[in-house]
């Protein structure tokens, strides 16, 4: 069972719909016990970085950390990816998971923010998440903060300079874009995650 983690921020229907479409069993849950039992974990996220504070309060963060230690595949989407890092300039008083080193930053003033729409990717060929997806593929973004390039970056995107579109460490992945809204490419990526 794939757990789609609900921490009270935004709309999780689209992610569930896409996973359902792939024929994978999934459930939207805010129960740490259910997250602990999951075979895979997806942490969606729309809205404000501060909303991730709920993960710490509810015991969901401990359940996720524990699962990652046990090598359970984890996918953070959008703010869910940002939360994998140490902190975000959007809410410096909210600590991230700190699984990956780095801080989310604003876009520079010379581009419109949020970054909304379809943008293309430069993909590292070795990433299992992007198996069968070629560089220059378009995916759908909507975000006001971003993760700079780090040593865990496996896909880059250009908008007011390059930033991390996807990161990877062992069996934990983060994507800044929305695979559930990125057409066939996004479904392929979610399917890759479900087949890890």
């Amino acid at each position, binding site marked *: 069972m794939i757990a789609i983690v609900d921490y009270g921020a935004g709309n999780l229907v689209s992610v569930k719909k896409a996973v359902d479409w792939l024929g994978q069993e999934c459930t939207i849950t805010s129960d740490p016990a259910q997250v602990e039992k999951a075979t895979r974990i997806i942490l969606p996220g729309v809205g404000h970085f501060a909303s991730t504070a709920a993960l710490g309060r509810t015991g969901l963060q401990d359940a996720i950390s524990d699962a990652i230690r046990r090598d359970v595949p984890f996918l953070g989407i959008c703010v869910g990816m940002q939360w994998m890092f140490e902190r975000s300039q959007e809410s410096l008083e909210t600590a991230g998971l700190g699984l990956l080193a780095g801080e989310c930053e604003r876009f520079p003033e010379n581009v419109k923010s949020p970054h909304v729409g*379809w943008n293309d990717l430069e993909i590292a060929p070795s990433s299992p998440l992007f198996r069968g997806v070629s560089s220059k593929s378009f995916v759908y973004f909507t975000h006001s903060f971003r993760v700079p390039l780090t040593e865990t970056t496996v896909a880059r995107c*250009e908008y007011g300079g390059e930033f991390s579109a996807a990161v990877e460490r062992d069996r934990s992945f983060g994507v800044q874009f929305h695979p559930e809204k990125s057409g066939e490419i996004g479904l392929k990526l979610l399917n890759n995650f479900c087949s890890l």
Partner: protein
Amino acid sequence: MLTKRIIACLDVDGGRVVKGVQFENLRDAGDPAELAKAHSASGADEIVLLDISAAHQHRTTLLDTVRRAAGQLFVPLTVGGGIRTLEDAAAVFAAGADKIGVNSAALADPALITRIAERFGSQAVVVAIDAKRCEGGLRWEAFTHGGRAAAGRDAIAWAREAESRGAGEILLTSMDRDGTASGFDCKLTRAAADSVRIPVIASGGAGGAQHFVEVFREGHADAALAASIFHYGLSSLGDLKRQLGSQGISVRWPC
């Protein structure tokens, strides 16, 4: 590079698409779910479902339509028309919409924008503005209720206020151009796009590929929306995107 978005709009009345678009291999050319899927397959970057039903009992029908359309659509779906409260918006999100569009209700109660944005995020809130030239074309006035009533607000000032209250995008329709197929109002679009930091979607007047080129180049639009254009000369969104690409406009193609 961030591409310019082409958005297909379906006007829905009582669960059926009006201004029907002709697609081959479609069992039912008036079914919003089938049309949304067909548009997506032919290259639409987003779909907008605009409920124009006057009757209140059609809300249940709309939610059912959204549910059916969303179940097989994997590009962003915006639903607008008749959303007056946070609860209305929540029901539409629960049915599978990614964004909601608010127009008259936001003008009547601008705090509605903030309430929806705080709960669902700014990226989910599109403020739709119907604008009409006034004072001999020197400025634009915002209208409500499907263009029937003047709101007493300058359209550009309202776009700025909507942004400051938490809107994620502005969907700007030129009432002067809507339905004319004579081209987008590039001056209006540019005035808004240069005044806010959030994306502006141009709407009203699309008649051919050149109109899209103009509104992206001269109007500074981030996205352009059309409903009935596929009746008039352009056989598909793919054709439109190929033409835009050949003129140097960055679009998602092939997709």
